[in-house]
């Protein structure tokens, strides 16, 4: 399954997931109240430098911002017509900054490491009798189901088209695809239980 994790190594990759998560939280809290253009611009430049430090092609990862340009434009326009374009610029910069910083974490952290860090963070919940072990199971099951569902939907689409079905009626395809998928889930549940269930997994 494709992910946003960047396979190359860098100094950022070597930091622990938990440390990066904590750093991101602190950065969000620190950046939130800022509202001066110059401060945000400097932080923005620092962030770009961080991306550049990610070994070859690090700057290309800045493209994560690009699909959001309509939103930045709308935000800015509302402020412009409201009479305060400066606040609009500040708002856009702040959001872009936070998105870029959060993306740095996603780029440099494996899902499994991040999941482990989150499970560790949630471990105090065991006082309430909740275990975090089902979490990893649920995550891997979900990830495995996604291509299955896509394939089921596509199969039904092709069968529908082969029979000359109209495009408007296509929604009905979700139903047999969903039922087939539910049956797969039913079997998955049963075989999991047969293997000792969630409690049997270490």
């Amino acid at each position, binding site marked *: *399954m*494709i*992910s*946003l*994790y960047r396979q190359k190594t860098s100094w950022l990759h070597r930091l622990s997931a938990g440390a990066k998560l904590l750093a*991101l939280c602190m950065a969000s809290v620190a950046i939130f109240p800022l509202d001066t253009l110059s401060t945000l611009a400097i932080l923005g430049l620092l962030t770009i430098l961080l991306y550049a430090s990610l070994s070859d092609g690090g700057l290309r990862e800045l493209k994560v911002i690009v*699909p*959001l*340009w*309509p*939103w930045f434009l*709308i*935000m800015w326009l*509302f*402020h412009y017509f409201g009479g305060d374009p400066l*606040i*609009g610029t500040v*708002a856009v910069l702040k*959001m872009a900054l936070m*998105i870029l*910083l*959060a*993306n740095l*974490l*996603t780029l440099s*952290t494996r*899902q499994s490491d*991040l*999941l482990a860090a*989150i499970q560790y963070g949630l471990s105090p919940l065991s006082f309430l009798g909740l275990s975090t072990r089902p*979490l990893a*199971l*649920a*995550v891997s*099951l*979900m*990830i495995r*189901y*996604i291509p*299955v*569902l*896509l394939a089921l*939907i596509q199969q039904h689409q092709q069968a529908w088209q082969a029979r000359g079905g109209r495009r408007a009626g296509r*929604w009905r395809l*979700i*139903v047999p695809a*969903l*039922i087939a*998928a*539910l049956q*797969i*889930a*039913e079997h*998955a*549940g*049963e075989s*999991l*239980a047969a293997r000792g269930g*969630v*409690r049997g997994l270490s």
Partner: protein
Amino acid sequence: MSNRSIERDIAQIALYAALVAALGLLPKISIPIAGGIPITGQSLGVMLAGVMLGPVRGALALLLFLLVVALGLPLLAGGRGGLAVFMSPSVGFLVGFPFAAMACGWLMGLMKEKSVLPSAWIAAALGGIVVLYAFGIPGLAWKAEMSLVDAAKVMAVYLPGDALKVLLTGLIAQTVWRGMPQALLSRN
């Protein structure tokens, strides 16, 4: 609760979470604001998860979906994912997903005695639109530093699409109910 039903729960929750993801990965019909808040196919998954699974499992399915997105999979419509999406204007909607599913499921439970189709429509409309937008619009206003009114104006363009999804949710729920009634956990 026996071992067996926990595994069954996990499998079904994972399945609906995957459905929300799959709906985001399918090519979407043209939407006026390209690259905007891409919640197009996905809120259908939110409504279905709530209507089919009930409030608790439906909410868990959406929480699982959000977790996997946070872990770095590009499952949000438009191929977006990772922690960055929680810093974007659509964060209100993302946070609202589990609540919307919970509302859909709770309403379905309330209307257990009524027939499936209208109950599903009501549940999907109140949960998937009213509750979801109750989170999404303030979230947008806060994140984008806009007024609530402006944020509402921006999101109004998505209402027709969402009304269509409510329609679909009811029809799907009813059709599944006829073929496989035990799949409608919200009623059993």
